């Protein structure tokens, strides 16, 4: 048994009034990866700072933290110094920690960046932080940490803002580094930040106390079989594009976000739209509700085309079609009380309900979503995330809709709160017999809740199947990567998504696909039927690729 590199013994932190961390004891051995999960405000950041030897001012520390060698903390925002090139930041850090001169620092920097699969690493050193894409920025932040050769590396919610597919890969590479060099790695984050994936040991922090692994939370599952029936919503060849101005030749340039998508949604069905950010799922969700103008195609609700609907008909359709927004608090006007906004929604969408009857409808809906009447007099900024999510749900339910379009409806929630809200959503869907169109980047939630799923990439469907089939037998490399990332396995895609402004020829996944061959560059793969109801857009879906990275 080797001696641990980092050890906490009966570590407590309190402010005199509150106990923030309560007698924590654990040890991290060389080459070990420890994950610490916890809800927002559970004390993860405080714990990591203390472990790094940077205690917060105004807090009393009892107990002991023992560490060997150099400790390094990567903070939550992963901040880089704004006005210095990457090379200069490496040079400064390495001169400080290791006393390296500029040339040695440069070599070390290139090695660290290459370890994290940054291509053309030497050239990137000339870039400033604002010139880096978000995934690249995180690689640079973590490479900086690796280059300094810490024996203990602590990372607070690393890469939490990235897509699961990219994050899982990056964390896996970080864990690989720890195994190779024998360093101790501590990763912290919310349960859905994917930090447990590469961990050899997982601890959970709850109200200042540590417990072994995550407690089994009750997860929302949709057990019902998909209801058969004709589609009530049908989308045909829908296209959404935004103008980008003119080229120097005077041609209009367009950014196509949704590219000729077709699907139908039956009464009571839950359809999942799965995709990374930038795949077009969120724009598609909004285009269905005509919240962004489509550039072509048709959206028909109950066999009536919405694209050509006059305002009055559109208003009637809005009564049936409601939306849950990714940030429910931001979807409420900060200047008005919740009650005023609910009233306004009812007035606009349900003119048949007399003004005197609105209060009763609002009261009933509030009880349904589990909010007290007192929220009506409050302003959005005063709501906690779960309250805001419930308020958003209540507003959507007020007019008595038949379809809810949900765009990452639980994005602001974490852990138990997230499952509570999703369970509520499913329950109300059952009692009110709603159809759901659920856009998400999290394959786990998406496939658990849905009946059927469309996997979206660059505004196109690349795989379509019912959720059980997709979970067990996804054929498209991109779908498999999304599912792997949700299970905190390493996804087999290389590199970062290409810029939407310069998509590759042929298959949109080509540059990241482990199975790509020359032909993939020549033709966009059509949707092929694998089995009834299961379709895939990949030239080589029947090649039994192991998808090894």
């Amino acid at each position: 048994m080797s001696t641990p590199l980092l050890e906490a013994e009966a570590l407590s932190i309190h402010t005199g009034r509150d106990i923030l961390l309560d007698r924590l004891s654990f040890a991290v051995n060389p080459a070990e990866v420890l994950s610490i999960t916890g809800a927002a405000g559970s004390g993860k950041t405080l714990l990591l700072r203390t472990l790094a030897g940077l205690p917060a001012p105004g807090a009393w520390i009892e107990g002991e933290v023992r560490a060997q060698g150099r400790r390094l903390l990567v903070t939550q925002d992963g901040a880089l110094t704004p006005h210095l090139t990457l090379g200069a930041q490496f040079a400064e850090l390495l001169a400080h920690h290791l006393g390296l001169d500029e040339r040695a620092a440069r070599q070390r920097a290139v090695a660290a960046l290459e370890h994290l699969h940054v291509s053309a690493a030497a050239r990137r050193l000339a870039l400033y932080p604002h010139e880096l894409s978000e995934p690249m920025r995180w690689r640079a932040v973590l490479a900086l940490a690796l280059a300094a050769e810490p024996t203990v590396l602590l990372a607070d919610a690393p890469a939490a803002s990235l897509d699961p597919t990219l994050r899982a890969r990056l964390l896996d590479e970080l864990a690989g580094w720890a195994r190779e060099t024998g360093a101790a790695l501590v990763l912290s984050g919310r349960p859905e930040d994917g930090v447990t994936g590469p961990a050899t040991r997982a601890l959970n922090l709850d109200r200042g106390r540590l417990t072994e692994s995550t407690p089994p939370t009750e997860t929302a599952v949709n057990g019902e079989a998909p209801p058969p029936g004709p589609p009530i919503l049908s989308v045909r060849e829908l296209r959404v594009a935004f103008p980008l101005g003119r080229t120097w030749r005077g041609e209009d340039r367009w950014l196509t976000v949704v590219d000729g998508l077709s699907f139908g949604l039956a009464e009571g069905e839950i359809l999942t739209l799965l995709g990374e950010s930038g795949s077009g799922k969120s724009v598609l969700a909004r285009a269905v509700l005509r919240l962004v103008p489509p550039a072509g195609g048709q959206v028909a609700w109950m066999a009536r085309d919405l694209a050509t609907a006059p305002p009055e008909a559109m208003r009637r359709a809005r009564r049936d079609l409601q939306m849950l927004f990714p940030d429910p608090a931001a979807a409420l006007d900060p200047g008005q009380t919740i009650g005023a906004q609910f009233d306004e929604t009812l007035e606009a969408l349900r003119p048949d309900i007399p003004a005197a009857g609105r209060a009763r409808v609002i009261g009933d809906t509030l009880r349904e979503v589990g909010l007290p009447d007192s929220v009506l007099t409050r302003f959005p900024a005063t709501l906690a995330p779960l309250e805001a999510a419930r308020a958003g749900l209540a507003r959507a339910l007020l007019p008595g809709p038949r379809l809810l379009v949900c765009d990452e409806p639980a994005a602001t929630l974490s852990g138990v709160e997230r499952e509570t809200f999703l369970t509520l959503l499913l329950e109300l869907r059952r009692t009110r017999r709603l159809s759901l169109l659920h856009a998400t980047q999290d394959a786990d939630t998406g496939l658990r809740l849905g009946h059927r799923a469309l996997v979206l990439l660059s505004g196109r469907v690349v795989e379509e199947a019912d959720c059980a089939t997709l979970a067990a037998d996804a054929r498209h490399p991109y779908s498999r990567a999304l599912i792997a990332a949700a299970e905190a396995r390493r996804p087999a895609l290389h590199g970062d998504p290409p810029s939407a402004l310069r998509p590759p020829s042929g298959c949109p996944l080509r540059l990241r696909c482990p199975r790509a061959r020359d032909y993939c560059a020549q033709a966009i793969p059509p949707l092929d039927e694998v089995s009834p109801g299961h379709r895939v857009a990949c030239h080589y879906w029947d090649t039994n690729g192991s998808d090894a990275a």
Partner: protein
Amino acid sequence: MRSPATDTPWHMASRRLTAHRPAVAGLAVLAALALAVPAAPLLGGGVVADALSAGQGSLAFALLAGLIGGGAGVVWGTLAVALGQRAERAMMSLANRLMGLPLVLGVLLASGLAGRGLGLLAGMVALTAAPAVAVLTQGELRSLLRREFLTAAQASGLSGRAILRRHIAPNAALPLAAAAWTALPRALAAESFASLLGLGLPDGVPSWGGQLATAVRLGDPLAVAPPALLLALSLWSLCAIGDGLRAAAGGRP
């Protein structure tokens, strides 16, 4: 948790304003000046009393020209956003180009050529302040129009006009007031500069710039100090309050 009555957006905005220390100091200074300047003639003679009473002309003029310039800038920026993409691009590139020019020289030129009329001067000074306000206004409106609650209002079946009246206008009020406020220090600075060179307010209207010019001509350092200090103090307060207003308006929930 605070009681809902004190959590209205206006309460929160005023809390953010009062949390901004320079703005509070600026408000205090400005309030003191607003009391002292009209009362100055009662103090009798002396350099300080003279300088204070000269503030009458400077401050009143800055208020007038600042209001015109700020208003024009807000209208300019709002129209640019309202009139569609092409007009927006043209109007904003004009504003940006004007901002890059030393417009104060235009003030000097106009009074030099056309004589020192109050109306002309106010118009020209307002013009120096308007482009910057227009740029701020357009930025504020663009970021407001991107916010999700407007999409949500659309999903709630509100017509474009109702969204404008009930959601856009109330949320734009404070940021646009903060944008327009920046015209005040600009107007004060432009007028003082012009008066210093003898091309500002007409003779007989006292101003800090004019007083400075006289003091410099007479080579009297003691007479330079009071108007210079008062001018600097007012400029600083106006800018500080502007920053505070922006902080108050910018606090996103």
